[in-house]
């Protein structure tokens, strides 16, 4: 019996591997999904959706090549390395990576990319690989804020400037890295509160669908929302705060419980679009009508903006993922020897019933 199993195992391995490959190939080759109407217009209006700097920050600290201790170089002949943190499975990451790639192509810059698949150790080795492959400049979307010392030392040894996008690295600006470009998540929460106050008239009970616990995006979007509510509309009460883990299904399940136990709820603030769309599914399932409960979300994905057009969502605060133009512009200015800001906060748009239809092309 021992012997037979052994023989089987030797045989089984190549068979299994080739079988798996064959399955993956045949499955996609004869697949036929539903007709997709939303993808036609995807690239049309993307150009005018590039990020703008919110505050030129006159009082903010700046950084120059001389202060950083590098050498001037011409961006056009340079190699840029881009390290993405999460796999491109959600619209935000897809748009972010695409924007970096598009901008590199537009400027004719050689781009090396890597994706850490949400594993921090992989991101560290990714960046070290990029340096080894000869990247002169680095754009990093960090998965974590801490633990970057090995990379920063390696980059400093080669005098490679680093720009981080959407999350910050805990290190000294203009010494360990050049600039940090991101949205202000607290401000996003405040603006969502403004939209909620307007939609509900500043009175009644509202609920919050929180993001994943322990995530800085969750805490900051919550803080901004609550602070603004307390300050501007004390009659608006937050009576329910439960996590939906940034996922649509979880958002749906939590909202189902919510409308069961608190049928009088007037508004739901979802800290990302996916949970907001889950809330819409729950309301539809409970036989509610569009507009019965005001939903405000953050992100600005195409599906959520379509939700405004359909009347189910009241407002969407944008979190713009198109970092490409601004990141490359920063690198360009910096490598020419001019000064750039250390903290670059980008201006996010917003969608309401007024501009959803015309602005849907800008959504990602």
């Amino acid at each position, binding site marked *: 019996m021992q012997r037979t199993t052994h023989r089987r195992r030797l045989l089984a391995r190549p068979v299994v591997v080739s079988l798996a490959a064959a*399955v993956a190939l045949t499955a996609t080759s004869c697949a036929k999904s539903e007709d997709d109407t939303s993808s036609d217009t995807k690239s049309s209006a993307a150009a005018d959706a590039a990020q703008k700097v919110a505050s030129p920050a006159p009082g903010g600290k700046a950084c120059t090549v001389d202060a950083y201790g590098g050498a001037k170089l011409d961006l056009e002949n340079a190699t840029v390395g881009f390290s993405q943190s999460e796999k*491109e499975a959600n619209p935000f990451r897809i748009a972010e990576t695409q924007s970096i790639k598009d901008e590199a192509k537009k400027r004719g810059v050689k781009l090396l990319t890597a994706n850490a698949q949400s594993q921090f150790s992989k991101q560290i080795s990714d960046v070290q690989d990029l340096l080894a492959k000869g990247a002169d400049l680095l754009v990093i979307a960090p998965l974590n804020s801490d633990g970057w010392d090995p990379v920063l030392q390696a980059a400093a040894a080669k005098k490679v400037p680093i720009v981080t996008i959407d999350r910050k690295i805990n290190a000294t600006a203009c010494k360990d890295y050049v600039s940090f470009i991101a949205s202000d998540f607290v401000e996003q929460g405040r603006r969502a509160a403004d939209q909620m106050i307007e939609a509900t008239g500043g009175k009644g009970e509202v609920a919050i669908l929180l993001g994943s616990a322990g995530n800085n995006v969750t805490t900051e979007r919550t803080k901004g929302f609550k602070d603004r509510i307390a300050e501007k509309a004390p009659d608006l009460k937050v009576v329910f705060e439960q996590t939906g883990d940034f*996922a649509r299904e979880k958002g749906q399940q939590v909202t189902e419980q919510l409308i069961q136990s608190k049928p009088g709820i007037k508004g739901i603030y979802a800290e990302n679009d996916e949970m907001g769309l889950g809330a819409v599914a729950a309301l539809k399932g409970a036989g509610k009508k569009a507009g019965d409960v005001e939903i405000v979300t953050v992100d600005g994905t195409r599906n959520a903006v379509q939700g405004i057009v359909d009347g189910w969502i009241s407002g969407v605060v944008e979190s713009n993922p198109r970092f490409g133009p601004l990141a490359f512009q920063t690198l360009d200015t910096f490598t020419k020897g001019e000064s750039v800001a250390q903290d670059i906060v980008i201006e996010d748009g917003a969608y309401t019933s007024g501009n959803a239809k015309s602005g849907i092309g800008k959504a990602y």
Partner: protein
Amino acid sequence: MAEAALRTAPLDRTRLVQWLQTYGVYAGVAALLVVNTVITPRFLTTENFRTQAVQVAPVIIVALGMALVIGTEGVDLSVGAVMALAASVTALYLGYGLLPSLLVVALFAAGVGLANGALVAFVGVQPIVATLALMVGGRGLALVLLPQLKDLRNPSLASLGSGDVLGVPYLILIAAALALLVAFVVRRTTFGRQLLAIGDSRPAAQLAGLPVRPVLIIVYVVCALLAAVAGVLATARLQASDPTSLGNLMELSAITAVVVGGTPLTGGRVNIGGTVAGAVLIQLLTATLIKHDLPPSWTQIAQAIVIVAAVYAARGRGKR
């Protein structure tokens, strides 16, 4: 008098533990129902029970398959991945219509179950390792096939997720039918007897001439198929295929339901009624905490307490 107390105390305790093993989970469900009736507004409404039942249905379906596998002294960690795979394959083949796409989903799920079963029955890999491989690989395949969430608009799929017969949603009917079917198979068929015999002692079953390998393979295929059903139903309810997050940690919910329901991890016994009640217990517990807006970390702590209590009760059984 002191002597009498000493003598009866251990007796009472064993009796209590035995009682807890058999009826503890039902007592837990009953207690939660009573507590909620008192403290939760609008708890005793049809809509509420409908919501809870619809939410727990996929967990029950997955837990049924898990109970069978655990009955053979195995465990299947790949159920969440199979749900994700079912979601992405459904989206991929929906263009041919609902039924053809469901057939392809069944094929894929059977493939995963076959791989699990073959690894366990023929290659002799421990179930936890074999299914761990498929848990990682299955979700990977699901993401290769469908890299991101996709909205589905097929009307038959939508009605599968939200339609009902005389006010009872399809989801609940399907879960109930499957639970009855699995309970019947375990109790009244030769296959069920063979399954339990293998779980009790695989060498003994082999010596007795039972078809050990075919039974094991069928059990893993059935478990994967049930997980696929749950995946399709969850997708139908959401009207979107979300392979990145669908079925995340489902294997743990299913194992919890089975263990809390009084099925020992050592195999040889399957308690289907308890498994269903176990899933309901966890659902009610979560619902209670969410409805009262308690911090999500409390839910995890409460679940942990329930599991520890269940394992404590199971420990008594081993001693007996």
